[in-house]
């Protein structure tokens, strides 16, 4: 029932003739029948009439509409492939729950710190891609060697991301290879890093001296477009580590020696440490958890730090703590500029 305080709905299934409508139509008809003396005044829509008139559904498949639909599709395509400053690529072992948690946290931090980016996930194993992955990131698959393990698998993943970046390089200025348990944590990190690189360095990459490593570590690798073509990884002997032991692992061969001078290293910068190796902040711009897959803690320098931390470490417990309150967790570890770390 229509009442004064509850007016009729505007949209009705059937047209309804109204007294006022009939009067208006009669008036218009008489106006049209009169001889033209002056240019007809534009008809002002009567609000009450407009409210009373039913909305007419236009036929969908007119030529005009089809044109519009085509234009919309093109616009969507253009949006996906429009030039972006930064392409970010991450390797995930699979689309499991832990991978989803890391992807979620990584994307939250990237969105809170980065203006213009596109995100790609290289999923190494598993036949199905979860809806969380497909809804939030562009998923790509590795090029062959799906059964590779450990360092070899990491190299396959890096090479897969690299191939993707090369293919789409025209759309971007910079490329970030980043482990699934790593992400930028500082507002404006991109501008800070690009300014630091200037014309002297072509990439920025983590260096984990705290793990006695001399090799550049691709957990965080920020590359300029010109250097993309040079990047090359392998699992090789790098040399000796800081305590004189043989060091053999994923090696960014292109930059370990030959282009080393063009590589800007990102060193650990935690203001506060909960572990000398895990939960690291690098250059006050990136966080890297370490052992993010939940694997057993067995890093190279474990015995070196044996006198200050236990040989066993509850990796999953530390991941839970991070996930529970990342703002507080990372804010405390990074520490130097609390207001510069975003709340996610």
């Amino acid at each position, binding site marked *: 029932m229509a009442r004064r305080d509850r007016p009729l709905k505007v949209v009705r299934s059937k047209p309804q003739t109204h007294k006022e409508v009939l009067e208006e139509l009669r008036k218009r008809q008489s106006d049209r029948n009169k001889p033209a003396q002056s240019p007809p005044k534009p008809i002002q829509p009567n609000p009450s009439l407009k409210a009373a008139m039913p909305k007419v559904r236009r036929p969908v498949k007119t030529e005009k509409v089809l044109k519009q639909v085509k234009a919309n599709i093109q616009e969507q395509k253009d949006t996906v492939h429009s030039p972006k400053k930064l392409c970010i690529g991450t390797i995930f072992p699979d689309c499991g729950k832990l991978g989803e948690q890391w992807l979620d946290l990584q994307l939250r931090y990237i969105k809170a710190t980065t203006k213009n980016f596109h995100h790609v996930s290289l999923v190494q194993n598993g036949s199905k891609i979860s809806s969380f992955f497909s809804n939030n990131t562009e998923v790509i698959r590795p090029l062959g060697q799906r059964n590779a393990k450990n360092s070899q698998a990491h190299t396959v993943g890096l090479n897969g991301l690299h191939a993707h970046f090369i293919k789409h390089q025209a759309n971007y200025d910079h490329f970030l290879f980043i482990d699934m348990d790593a992400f930028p944590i500082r507002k404006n990190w991109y501008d*800070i890093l690009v300014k*630091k690189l200037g014309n002297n*360095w072509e990439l920025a990459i983590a*260096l984990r*001296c*705290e793990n006695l490593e001399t090799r550049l570590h691709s957990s965080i690798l920020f590359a300029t477009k010109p250097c993309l073509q040079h990047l090359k990884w392998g699992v090789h002997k790098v040399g*000796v580590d*800081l*305590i*004189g032991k043989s060091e053999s692992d994923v090696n960014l061969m292109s930059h370990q020696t030959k282009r*080393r*001078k*063009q*590589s*800007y*290293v990102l*060193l650990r*910068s*935690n*203001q*506060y*440490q909960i572990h*000398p190796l895990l939960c690291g902040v690098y*250059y*006050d711009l990136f966080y890297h958890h370490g052992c993010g897959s939940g694997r057993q803690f067995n890093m190279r320098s474990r015995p070196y*730090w044996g*006198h*200050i*931390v236990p040989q066993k470490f509850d990796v999953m417990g530390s991941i839970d703590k991070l996930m529970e309150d990342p703002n507080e967790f990372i804010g405390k570890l990074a*520490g*130097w*500029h609390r207001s510069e770390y975003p709340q996610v």
Partner: protein
Amino acid sequence: MKSGKLLVGSIFPDTSKWSRLWLRMQLRYLKATTRTEFDHISVLQDGDPDSFSNESEVVLSSRGGGGSVAHMRGLKLLKDHFMRVKDEYEFFLFLDMDAFPIKNNWLSLLDDRLAGQWDLATILRPENLECRFHSSVIFCRLKALEKLDWKIGEVGHDLKGGKENDLHILPYQEELSTRVLPLLKSNKHLVHPLLCSVYWDMFYHHSCGSGRKFRMRSSQYWGHMMPKETPPAAFIDEIMADSNTFIKKLTGWTEHTHVPEE
């Protein structure tokens, strides 16, 4: 050789207030953390050696030169002295004036770790982008002491790819580099990326301990996060006022020795 005895040597630029305060601090911590008998020798680069300390044997270094040159001369003088009395000691420790051990029973822990694998332990400061071993702390036995020498010159490239040209330890920087156990920064809490450092949870090194202007290789590198006004003197005041509280704040991994005030 007297079993277990340690000889500690340290270099001081002059007999100023800062030098005296650091010497007192160093001796306090050595006494509180060293479980073996030790003697202390100070190389004084300038000033009257007789008025400097009655707890440390004081040797006057020849004058002239500054910075790295003076440091090298001091280290060589210390080594010469160590070699003259080598038969009386088993262990040797070179320390910058603003460096000292902070962990109880440090000598035993460190010597056990070296245990035939490494000849000496010394500081490595990647946080200052350095690839050279840093002579602010060197711990060794006689076998390594005999080989020790120092040189000022090109070491190679620092971590940013620039030339590194400074005082370094021979022959351990090159031929014998795999015989060195580097002591890395281990602060649980940092007040500065370069100053007030704890190494391997065992030694404290203040840096710029003379109160000189802060000017280190990596200042620019850390420019986006370091406090713009870096106050070495303020940190010196803080540690001198209450070293136990200050050092406890920086370490924190394990329980550290409470060092009685004088």
